[in-house]
């Protein structure tokens, strides 16, 4: 077991290096480089000559006048030695600060999403498996899939627009800190969180249903039935535990979605999360923020996956550690 853990942790390093190299190079491939944008947006330039002069000044100031491998080297040394992800090209603030400000928001939204998804998907998934092809199964599954089929931005817009017309209510446009007003804070995240959770609930539900169905066909379940155990015992004590294992993996797969995928809801509900930062930075070609942000997301996801893999290895007696 210990060897397995060590092996897994060591394997992260090449993955991370590959990932950071990929991020660094790929962001600079986006056409429409940042300096051109700055020069063009600066407005009235009179001649190409003065454009070029301005361009050189900006390049120098932003540290973009050195070759790309030098930039990469500087970036990596900055991270390893100082934990410094660089400075935003447009905003002139440390990238670490920008990310840290947004991380709690994305986290809170993600937690709400995950909890909602679980509340919807677990009961329906289990029920659908035990009572396969019954009316309840159909209603439950239809509901879960209907949740998934309505795009998040559509539901989000409906929730923002129509209550404002019918009841004069709209979601808060100001960030309410938890310390000042816990209820308001929770309320602000609840609505986009629920919509986010609804989107992923369908997938979870179907996966859980499949694994439950699979498990219910195992021999040991048939043994339990024939022993005369009540349904509740069979389901809870034998089937559910084993069916949940793959679902843990699935939840792990949802984390990337929750970390980066709430862009749409963050935009509609005025939550400055990491997803929105990424979109704005991609539009503005702010390389340092994009690189730093994607790297942070990658590290977070790798870490979560590691935890899940370890939990899986610990819980599932069938897993071989080779």
């Amino acid at each position, binding site marked *: 077991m210990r060897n397995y853990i060590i092996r897994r942790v060591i*394997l992260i390093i*090449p*993955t*991370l290096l*590959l*990932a950071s190299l*990929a*991020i660094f190079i*790929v*962001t600079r*491939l*986006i*056409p429409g480089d940042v300096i051109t944008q700055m020069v063009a947006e600066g407005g009235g330039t009179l001649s190409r000559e003065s454009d070029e002069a301005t361009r050189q000044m900006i390049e120098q100031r932003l540290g973009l006048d050195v070759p790309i491998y030098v930039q990469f080297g500087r970036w990596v040394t900055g991270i390893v030695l100082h934990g410094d992800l660089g400075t935003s090209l447009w905003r002139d603030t440390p990238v670490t600060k920008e990310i840290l400000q947004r991380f709690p928001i994305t986290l809170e939204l993600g937690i709400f999403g995950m909890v909602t998804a679980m509340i919807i998907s677990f009961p329906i998934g289990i029920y659908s498996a035990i009572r*396969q*092809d019954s009316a309840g199964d*159909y209603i439950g*599954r*239809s509901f879960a*899939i*209907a949740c*998934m*089929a*309505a*795009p*998040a*931005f*559509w539901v989000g*817009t409906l929730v923002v*627009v129509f209550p404002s*017309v019918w009841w004069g209510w709209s979601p808060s446009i100001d960030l309410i800190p938890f310390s000042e007003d816990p209820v308001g804070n929770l309320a602000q995240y609840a609505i986009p969180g629920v919509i986010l959770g609804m989107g992923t609930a*369908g997938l979870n539900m*179907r996966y859980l249903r*499949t694994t439950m*169905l*699979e498990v*219910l*066909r*195992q021999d040991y*379940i*048939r043994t339990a*039935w024939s022993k005369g155990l009540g349904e509740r015992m069979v389901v809870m004590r034998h089937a559910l535990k084993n069916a949940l294992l793959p679902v843990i993996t699935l939840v792990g797969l949802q984390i*990337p*979605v929750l*970390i*980066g*995928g709430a*862009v*749409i809801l963050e935009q509609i509900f005025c939550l400055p999360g990491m*997803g929105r930062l*990424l*979109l704005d930075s*991609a*539009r503005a070609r702010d390389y340092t923020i994009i690189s730093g942000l*994607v790297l942070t*997301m*990658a*590290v977070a*996801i*790798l870490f979560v*996956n590691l935890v899940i893999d370890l939990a899986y290895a610990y819980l599932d007696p069938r897993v071989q550690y080779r």
Partner: protein
Amino acid sequence: MVEAITEKRRGALADFFLRLVKEKPLGALGGVVTLLFLFTAIFADFLAPHGMNEMVEVVGLSGPSTNYPLGTDQLGRDILSRIIYGARVSVIVSLVATTLAVLISTILGGLSGFFGGKFDLVAQRFVDAWMCFPGLVVLIVAASIVGPGMWQVIICLGLLYGISGSRIPRSAVIGIKENVYVDAARVIGCSTPRTLYRHIMPNVMAVLIILFTTRVPLMILVEAGLSFLGLGVPPPTPTWGGMLSTEGRRYMLQNPWMAIWPGLALSIVVFGISMFGDAMRDLLDPRLRGGVGRYGVKVKARLKTKIGE
């Protein structure tokens, strides 16, 4: 004395369809929806009363009427025609992207699982590195690089979900590889391609079909999300996601029909394909065969008829 229960022999395909309709009515309904979807897409040119960008009315934003059953949008284009053509774009994007994704997943995951060892180790590191980026992040960056366009969207989606989905065929192949008959094939001297083709593939097929049917609705939804962010199939080509996220949202209060129709179309199609996919999985997944479930259903049915006599 209990008579031997004889079963009429039917072809596998006919058996499948019959079971689909009898045991899984919702799935059958989903299948009908899927077929309608495909039909609309293929015959869009004949079904649509007007061109997809034809501005039939000078002033648009009207609700349903006899001339335009679903109303017109802000540029005076017929919404019904745009929805029909939108089906075509959705079909192309989702089917081609899913095929691409499943192909990539199978090749990458299947070979990785079958050969194992160093190849597997290195390949999985690449896949890990790929998977630690949130999907939307990769799409945003990729879409910014390649620019808007239907084929760009297809390739981005196919590549993204292909690589991240490679785990599934891989674990299926690993599971099958452990079976005795694979060893037996090797012992009698089957070459690798033959082993792959004749022994591994048929057993993985079920998993692949399920993967396919679950991915298709996902692709449609992801394309809708990309359109909202401005990175999807560019206008004026109508896509349901695009119609919802741009015009539908902007004119939501003046002409709600512009948001309702594409949304309904999207929801119904996603719902139908998902239900159909679920039914397929229930019927085809080898791990779901037998056991209390199906066996129980069959036996109960027989007993009822027997006892009822």
